[in-house]
């Protein structure tokens, strides 16, 4: 640790409860990465605050010493958005996990940032409500992280992303002020700007979420197809026919194999692709739509249809899908989870191109995706013990994003840009676009201390002062990260 960090750590200890400041190198290293493990950086200091005031104090002290800070919830992000700074402070909100208020009459709840996504639903389920966005990691990921990444999930096709379900935020600005951003406030939509800003505009300390009424009826259908083309055809026909399912998810053969190995989900044997279609709403509407979906699936070549008879069977159908990412660990020593978006109509073409890429480079790709909105999650599998395999996987993974851009899509659907995809930003945006985004950033964080090095490939305009260090970033120096 540098002298500045040493001194800062001492000041932090004075400002925080006992045990809330971690400086032991062995402990610090356990925070070196989030869910994306190929970017690692041991944080200079870790703090575990318990209130907004404590976070504000931490941020003010960081400002005083010109040290960058990064916020982290449960560390499940998949774009390295919570990658620490070796020269900075990692602000972990995992101790702030109280549900502060539940107001069913007004359908809202106020929670601390460390509350998990699923815990909100669990707190109100018995009253017939739930919190709609449902990332696959919902039992682990925190609402603070959801706000930072504007997280989605299988059901965002019908219900929208985090931004559609957050009514107000209390944040600590990069200057250390505690302010409230409310969706009802007139003027610029600062709340909208903050959600999805990946920690670059400040730290969330309190979230007011919208609670949704649990639908009267839910029907979940599992359709098995010979191949992914048939599945894709069914997706287009369902949406084209005017049905908006709550979710419509597809998995290919390799992803099914992984899920079977992990959770024995018992999907139909011999399926080249499975489609999970969930319909919800008033019972009569669901019944009508269900008949339509069933017909479309059969017309598209589905060889087996299963309908969940109750919540348990529904959970069983979803289990395979929800565990798919981590389950791939069962069939491959290492893998990259990619996240990209293509127009739904381009799905078959893009999937065929991914197949070609896979064959060309000898790298297996498992496909899991939110088919309804064209959000792909290709899982690029490789053996990290095999020389060169990692590089080839990186290449394939990157080429998939190129495909997304070529087809008018996006480099990320819901995992965020983080540190992992900042280098793709110039492929999607012009310098002018990026400069304009940086102006927003600078309006909140003129010194560039709040999660620097994320989203943007290069510091521009107001510049990102890399804390107390000058010159080459230590990560770049050690070859663990690259800067463009």
């Amino acid at each position, binding site marked *: 640790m540098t002298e500045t960090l040493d001194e800062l750590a001492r000041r932090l200890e004075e400002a925080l409860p006992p045990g809330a400041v971690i400086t032991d190198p062995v402990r610090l290293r*356990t925070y070196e990465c989030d869910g994306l493990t190929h970017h690692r950086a041991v944080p200079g200091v870790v703090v575990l605050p318990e209130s907004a005031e404590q976070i504000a104090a931490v941020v003010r002290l960081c400002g005083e010493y010109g040290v960058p800070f990064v916020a982290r919830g449960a560390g499940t992000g998949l774009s390295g958005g919570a990658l620490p700074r070796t020269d900075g402070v990692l602000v972990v909100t995992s101790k702030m996990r109280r549900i502060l208020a539940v107001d069913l009459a007004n359908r809202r709840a106020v929670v601390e940032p460390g509350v998990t996504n699923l815990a909100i639903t669990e707190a109100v389920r018995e009253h017939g409500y739930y919190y709609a966005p449902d990332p696959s990691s919902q039992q682990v990921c925190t609402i603070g992280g959801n706000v930072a990444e504007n997280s989605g999930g299988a059901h965002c096709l019908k219900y929208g992303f985090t931004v559609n379900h957050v009514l107000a935020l209390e944040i600590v600005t990069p200057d250390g002020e505690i302010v409230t951003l409310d969706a009802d406030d007139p003027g610029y939509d600062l709340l909208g700007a903050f959600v999805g800003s990946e920690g670059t505009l400040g730290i969330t300390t309190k979230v007011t979420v919208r609670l949704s009424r649990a639908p009267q009826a839910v029907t979940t259908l599992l359709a098995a197809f010979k191949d992914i083309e048939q599945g894709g055809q069914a997706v287009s026909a369902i949406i084209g026919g005017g049905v908006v399912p709550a979710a419509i998810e597809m998995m290919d053969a390799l992803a099914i194999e992984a899920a079977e190995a992990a959770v024995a989900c018992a999907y139909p044997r011999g399926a080249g692709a499975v489609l999970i279609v969930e319909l919800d709403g008033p019972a009569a509407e669901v019944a009508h739509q269900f008949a339509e979906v069933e017909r479309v699936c059969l017309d598209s070549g589905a060889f087996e249809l299963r309908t969940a008879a109750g919540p348990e069977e529904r959970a069983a159908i979803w289990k395979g899908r929800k565990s798919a990412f*981590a389950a791939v660990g069962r069939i491959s020593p290492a893998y990259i989870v990619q996240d990209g978006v293509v127009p739904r109509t381009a799905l078959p073409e893009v999937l065929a191109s991914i197949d070609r890429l896979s064959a060309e480079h000898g790298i297996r790709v498992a496909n899991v995706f939110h088919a309804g909105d064209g959000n792909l999650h290709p899982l690029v599998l490789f053996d990290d013990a095999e020389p060169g395999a990692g590089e080839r996987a990186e290449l394939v993974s990157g080429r998939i994003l190129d495909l997304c851009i070529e087809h008018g899509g996006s480099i990320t659907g819901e995992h965020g840009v983080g540190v992992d995809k900042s280098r793709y930003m110039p492929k999607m945006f012009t310098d002018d676009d990026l400069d304009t985004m940086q102006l927003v950033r600078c309006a909140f964080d003129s010194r560039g201390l709040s999660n620097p090095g994320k989203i943007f490939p290069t510091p521009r305009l107001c510049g990102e002062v890399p804390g107390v260090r000058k010159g080459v970033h230590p990560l770049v120096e050690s070859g663990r990260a690259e800067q463009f």
Partner: protein
Amino acid sequence: MDPELIDDCVHCGFCLPTCPTYVLWGEEMDSPRGRIHLMKQHVEGTPLTDEMAGHFDACLGCMACVTACPSGVRYDKLIEQTRAEVEREHVREPSDRALRELVFQLFPYPRRLRAMRLPLRLSAGLRRRIAPGLERVNPSLAAMADLAPERPSRVRLPRRVEAVGRRRATVGMLTGCVQGEFFPQVNAATARVLAMEGCEVVIPPAQGCCGALPLHSGRPEQAVRFARRTVAVFERAGVDTIVVNAAGCGSTMKEYAEIFEGIGDGEWAGRARAIRAVDLAEYLAELGPAARRHPLPLAVAYHDACHLAHAQGVRSQPRELLAAIPGLELREIAESSICCGSAGTYNLFQPEAARELGDRKAGRVLATRADLLVSANPGCTMQITSAIRRSGAAPIPVAHTAQVLDASLRGLEKVA
């Protein structure tokens, strides 16, 4: 610590909310993912510091993370190897060393434990506390709790209990250390239930500790010794199935073959594989009911012992057995997959964390407003009982699944 097992972890974090210490403290180092990271650091050359050992010691070994892990990480194996490494490399404080020595020289030895029981007055005290509660709720259960003789001497189980009616199977029965000495009535009930369901029960008197306690505490040599003796004793008894009514013992005995293989002992692995260890509830569910169930009008909360639910995957069977008793209403305990803090020797070595977890569990148990708590592990029973007593709430009687079945099968409510 096997680097390949460590590398299976993809750092997804799905284990975090299931880990009791993460639930308590919210710190990465005290989560399964964080502990695996620490193991990795150690394997890569970082010395085993006091801090590191502290985080390993703080792990309850409840295996909830193994249930939650989508990547199939064998955290159970990893923490076992790590604990052995800690015992080898880490120098403990003299007071800590002395306490550990006392526990490991006492608990796995039924005869020494028996000598301790009278001065501790544990069994008598427990019964005194439980009996009035049971009396109010259901006199038959009170009678059941009083099955143990007046003086807290042990229940002498015969070497062989004949099957009632047509014999459907012959099984061996493990009597355990803590179960046998502190809860002899549970063993008596187990033998009776098995017999009434048509099993001839063989109870070799020479059996001792199965090895679970030392195995879960980083003492593999002692564990292997106990495992060999257990296998040999049941081989001599001529049974190929051992029914176990203590969760921690059952989970270890199911791993015998793997343990022997781990030390390259193929012969003993083969011998271990020839005998099947099975949990009582698991076995009864498989066997199917033969004896008549008499009504027990009780609201029962079922507690998942970690080494039953997580380590053995036995969750539905005890619930089905209980729910099949006429008049019995089964209630779920919120957060049932989070450990009560007993965790073998954990409440002796990590009293503060154990206490916090115990209080948390007691709150959830009391919220069910059940008449009776059913726990299939002696450690959990003692832990939750003491947490409820501490809370100042009216005590809730605690029984083993076997005891509830025993009361129903014998129609005790009519007897009482």
